[in-house]
């Protein structure tokens, strides 16, 4: 057993010996190809493969490619190798250019508008299906998937408490600290309560909560539904006569919509606590005063507004997560794309909705 070697006899005859196969550990075909390159192009070269020890398809393919895909009279083979070259010659087919394939793909999906319309259509279908399921549950309350809803409330709500609380608190501290420095310059210390109260309860709380929920629960939902599609679990459910909308989508949507306002108040609460603590140390505003003063400057309508926002954002995140989960194709690439899209779209849409809310409610509660 020896590695693949070749030698030149009488100037025009090239003799290959040794193991021309991947099995010989010492072979490096790129090097061999480079060494052989000058002889491939020489038309008067005579190739002697009869003393070769072992020839596998890899080496044969390399030689055949070098000869331009054709076996000529100038190649002498052992009979047992002829079939190998034969099958290799038959396997030849025009090479596909990769770049062309890419361009084809672009042509098939013209523009983002079409994909947007497709998404919208799917989304509307999903909401329609959900509405039908709700109507069905009205008539058959026994079929309400309590267990799944409860599990989703626990996963998306209870388990999210630590992270939302922590992030809320930190944001409160940071905001209060910056505001305190500015307000002290103007001697308007007491306005810290107004600023924190309004900003956190009306704007920051809902946005923070939605971003965290989208990143935490939204991505998990998309991935879960996506994997269930990949492994055909959703189809299995369907064959058992279980509606996937009822058992998979509805519990997620209901649970997230229900817990979003609660999470929102939890996040806002910790943000206010963080702000209050900083206000005490930086500006000397006592906790008691802060708590007493807050309802006077932030009207109760703001809480109603925040609750509505909470419901809307929770519903949006859950719907978008399920929408992208159901669009996962059975491959890993699509799964990762969908999960990313789900989170990015949720956050974008939530911020868009928030802007709309801000404009629509500009004269309420301030």
């Amino acid at each position, binding site marked *: 057993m020896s590695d693949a070697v070749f030698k030149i006899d009488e100037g025009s005859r090239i003799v290959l010996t040794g193991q021309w196969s991947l099995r010989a550990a010492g072979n490096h*075909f*790129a090097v061999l*190809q480079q060494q052989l390159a000058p002889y491939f192009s020489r038309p008067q070269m005579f190739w002697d493969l009869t003393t070769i020890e072992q020839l596998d398809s890899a080496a044969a393919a390399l030689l055949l490619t070098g000869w331009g895909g054709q076996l000529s009279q100038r190649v002498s083979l052992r009979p047992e190798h002829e079939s190998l070259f034969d099958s290799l010659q038959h*396997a030849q087919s025009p090479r596909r250019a990769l770049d062309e394939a890419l361009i084809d793909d672009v042509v098939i999906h013209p523009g983002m508008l079409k994909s947007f319309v497709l998404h919208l259509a799917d989304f509307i279908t999903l909401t329609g299906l959900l509405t039908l399921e709700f109507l069905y549950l009205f008539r058959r309350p026994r079929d309400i998937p309590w267990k799944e809803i409860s599990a989703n409330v626990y996963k998306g709500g209870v388990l999210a408490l630590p992270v939302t609380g922590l992030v809320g608190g930190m944001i409160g501290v940071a905001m209060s600290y910056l505001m305190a420095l500015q307000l002290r310059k103007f001697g308007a210390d007491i306005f810290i309560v107004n600023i924190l109260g309004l900003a956190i309860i009306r704007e920051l709380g809902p946005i923070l909560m939605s971003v965290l929920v989208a990143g935490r629960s939204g991505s998990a939902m998309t991935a879960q539904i996506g994997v269930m599609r990949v492994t055909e679990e959703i189809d299995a459910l369907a064959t058992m006569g279980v509606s996937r909308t009822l058992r998979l989508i509805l519990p997620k949507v209901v649970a997230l919509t229900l817990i979003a306002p609660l999470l929102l108040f939890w996040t806002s609460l910790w943000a206010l606590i963080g702000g209050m603590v900083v206000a005490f140390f930086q500006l000397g505003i006592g906790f008691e005063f802060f708590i007493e003063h807050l309802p006077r400057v932030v009207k109760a309508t703001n809480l109603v507004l925040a609750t509505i926002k909470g419901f809307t954002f929770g519903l949006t995140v859950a719907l978008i997560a399920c929408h992208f989960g159901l669009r996962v194709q*059975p491959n890993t*690439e699509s799964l990762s794309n969908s999960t990313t899209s789900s989170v990015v779209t949720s956050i974008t849409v939530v911020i868009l909705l928030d802007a709309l809310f801000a404009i629509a409610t500009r004269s309420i509660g301030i």
Partner: protein
Amino acid sequence: MTADATTPVCEAINIWTQFGNTVIHKNLSMQVNSGEVLALVGGSGSGKTTLLRHIVGLTQPTRGEIRLFGENLQTLDRDGQKRVRNRFGMLFQQGALFSALSVFENIAFPLRELRQFDEATIHLLVMHKLALVELEPQHADLLPAQLSGGMIKRVGLARALSLEPELLVLDEPTAGLDPDRSENFVRLIKDLRIQLGLTVVFVTHDLDTLTSLADRVAVLADQHIVASCTIDELGSMTHPFVCNFFNGVKERLERFNKPNELIKHGK
């Protein structure tokens, strides 16, 4: 290279496997000789797949040693491991094709990893492997999700064969295929074995596959190999699992040996 004709391609020496308190393999030893086709059979949960995973180095036995081509995969350095791993190909039960890559790219993957071939050669080799497993060139652009069960197995086999391995490891090669396709697949493996001079180890539940493909059968029961012999010799075994199992095999062997009569009856 340490491998020559007398070194067993694969050798399991006193293997113990334990998951928590469950013992899967107890002092199990087995040997696969060069050029033979060995079937690994046993009841569900008897540790066949686990043993296969030990052999290809995906898992390690609790105690004992697996030698591939005379070398222990666990004690080799990275390059050595890669070298040994390139000498065998594995076909997974579900195919385990890379779902984001097309059929072409799946088969080309091991060749590209080698970094020894240019695109033209890779293309030729992939097309050759496709033809070898009897797939059409136009299938090259399909994604695994678009393939049928039988095609997935074929592509998996083509990928396993792309580095011209000496040892082919098959996990349930015909599971999930209809009898017709599974027969075709078995015939394909038999042909390839002759063409490429392969050593094959496979796990199966399917008695038809077993009788038509295997040279030798290793029966895994009671945590070790209770029998390792040709199918005919299984008849003289007294182990209850082997007896039970052999009854099923015997019927098939009779059919297998007298195919002409059956055809006459059928017509």
